[in-house]
């Protein structure tokens, strides 16, 4: 029972933290809806990726393909059916799930590096095709966008035409800014809950067993393929939901979302936050998106402002040392941080938090609760 209660507390703390983002992110200058939507969306993406990589150990280098497919599906739902979000997300789930089933069925025949290369190959194929042959579906380089004369069958049948291109809505609530953020936040919490249930279920146990020793699993008489395939599909659906939400916040889908660098990004997020943990990937997503949007906007004047408390000579020295790492150079900081984490802290920021807590918290939270540790004092 205590495990169940702990999970409930964990979930509530997570939900409160997500919903209160506009409050506690304000001091960091990140409390504007566009960015918080990204935090939530990429959080979903990373949670889904972690269900595959964190639990089964299969490193997919082509996960962005499902994100892209989800985006296209959602925009098509806006164009053809309705501006309502529900059918858009549903279609994104369906299409990305089918797509993941097809790719997973083939790729999962191999493991290790071969699996990575196979997923990479499929994602690059999707990306290249989306740019070239599938232009009627994807609108090529321009990206798929809404137009004034889209059919929108359901909307046209039920409501009178409003002037201009409508925005995505949820049963009449127009989703701009904060409304869209709260939609993403609620879906993130739902996705987190589902991931938690999977993690605690016998199915999740199977997935972890596959990670620790697939051969032994096979010898005990389990066919591991259905389990890995289900994990792959679930993870693809998460990516599809994230892609659909990206289309909700900005109804435009482009092929660059499927490029392999985008797949690399979600790998970075998951590792950075803590692979195999529940909340780690979300933290990783927040950190990277924060870097990308806030850190990258730092410039010389701002730096001089920050270090203005130092004496003059020292100030210019510090600024000249720091400046290659911020602004344009934020990728450099990210790369260094990532390398340090892989080398010294394979469990990501979550493991770092656990080590700090083990040192200062008098041993609380160490031991058996390795995978559910939470930086917030949840216990």
């Amino acid at each position, binding site marked *: 029972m205590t495990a169940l209660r702990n999970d409930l507390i964990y979930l509530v703390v997570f939900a409160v933290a997500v919903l209160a983002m506009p409050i506690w992110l304000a001091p960091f200058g990140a409390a504007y809806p566009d960015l918080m939507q990204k935090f939530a969306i990429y959080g979903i993406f990373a949670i889904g990726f972690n269900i595959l990589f964190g639990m089964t150990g299969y490193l997919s280098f082509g996960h962005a393909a499902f994100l892209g497919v989800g985006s296209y599906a959602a925009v098509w739902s806006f164009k053809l059916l309705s501006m309502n979000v529900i059918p858009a997300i549903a279609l994104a789930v369906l299409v990305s799930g089918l797509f993941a089933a097809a790719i997973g069925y083939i790729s999962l*025949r191999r493991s290790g590096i071969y699996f990575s*290369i196979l997923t990479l190959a499929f994602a*690059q*194929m999707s990306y*290249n095709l989306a740019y070239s042959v599938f232009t009627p579906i994807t609108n090529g380089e321009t990206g798929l966008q809404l137009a004034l004369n889209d059919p929108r069958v359901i909307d046209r049948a039920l409501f009178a035409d409003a002037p201009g291109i409508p925005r995505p809505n949820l049963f009449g609530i127009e989703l701009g800014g904060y409304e869209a953020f709260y939609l993403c936040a609620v879906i993130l919490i739902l996705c987190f809950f589902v991931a938690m249930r999977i993690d605690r279920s016998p199915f999740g146990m199977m997935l972890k067993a596959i990670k620790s020793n697939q051969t032994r699993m096979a010898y005990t008489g389990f066919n591991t393929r259905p389990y890995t395939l289900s994990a792959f599909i679930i993870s693809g659906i998460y990516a599809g939901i994230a892609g659909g939400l990206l289309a909700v916040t900005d109804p435009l889908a482009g092929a660059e979302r499927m490029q392999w660098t985008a797949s690399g990004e979600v790998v970075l997020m998951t590792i950075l936050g803590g692979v195999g943990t529940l909340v780690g990937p979300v933290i990783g997503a927040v950190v990277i998106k924060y870097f990308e949007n806030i850190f990258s906007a730092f410039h010389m004047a701002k730096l001089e402002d920050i270090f203005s408390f130092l004496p003059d000579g020292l100030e210019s020295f510090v600024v000249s040392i720091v400046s290659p790492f911020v602004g344009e*150079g934020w990728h*450099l900081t990210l*790369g260094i941080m*990532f390398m340090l984490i892989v080398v010294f802290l394979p469990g990501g920021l979550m493991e770092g938090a656990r080590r700090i807590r083990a040192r200062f918290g008098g041993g609380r939270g160490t031991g058996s609760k390795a995978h559910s540790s939470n930086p917030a004092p949840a216990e």
Partner: protein
Amino acid sequence: MDQLILQLLNGLDKGAAYALIALGLTLVFGTLGIVNFAHGALFMIGAFCAVVFSRLLQLETVTIDPARLTPWGSPMEVRTPLVQAWLGDFGAVLVQWSVPLSILFAIPVMLIVGVAMERGLIRYFYKRAHADQILVTFGLAIVLQEIVKANFGANPIPVTAPAALAGSVDVGGWLGLSGVFYPWWRLVYLGFALAVMGLVIAFLRFTTYGMVVRAGMEDRQTVGFLGIDIEKRFTVVFGIAAVVAGIAGAMYTPIVSPNYHIGMDFLVLSFVVVVVGGMGSVSGAVFAGFLLGILQSFASMNEVKNILPGIDQVIIYLVAVVVLLVMPRGLMGRKGVMEN
């Protein structure tokens, strides 16, 4: 027919670049067991060696020549490269031939970079999972890329081939056909790539050193028991792989102007090449590199594209998927190396 020859040459050329990178990748994998995602970055560093070298050669001195006047009547400023000022005509030749000469500059640089990378970072990852190796070298690739970007900017930097090799040559003429023109430099690159591959393979096959390395690839433990410091040899192999990737990059600069992400662009394809050829197989990597290069350029012919639209975009990946599923070890993979 002309078209076919042209595409064959194109394919050989592309394949040469793929094969050179894949050669190093597969060598590192076969010896050290490391999946090195930073290998593309080595190609990029090599390319920038050429850029730096040609810039060094072109450092200019400004002298005022009172004998000549500008149209405005003031004495003309004459800019001459320092090398030319010091060495006369020979200096001018040096400036002209900066790209091929940059190989001499790239070899020591790449050797240092490669050995530093192996000793400084990669050796700590021998015992860790392949996923960890991929991740840390991926991070390293980002860091190297960003350092180059910070110093050279994000735009491609044009580098010119020597004037004598800048034009095109009538390849058809040699074969008794007419009108197949092909750039000289690309032919040079092809020959250069073949020479480098030949050297590396000969080194592994015909020298005692190479024999020990090959023995280490088969069974490093036994080689260690025989009293040979196999780790040191593998470090040297990593250095060689870095040099091969680096000079491949340096020589490629006149074909594609280098920018900071040129390495990543090649890396993905080279990985596919390595896997198709068979992880750890050197001849497999060379063969698969040329095979995929040629397939790609034939697939980009209009006649083919009309029948199978979009095939040029996916052919490499398609081949990779089929090979991986049908032949678990790749085309020429050794038995027992990462078969599942």
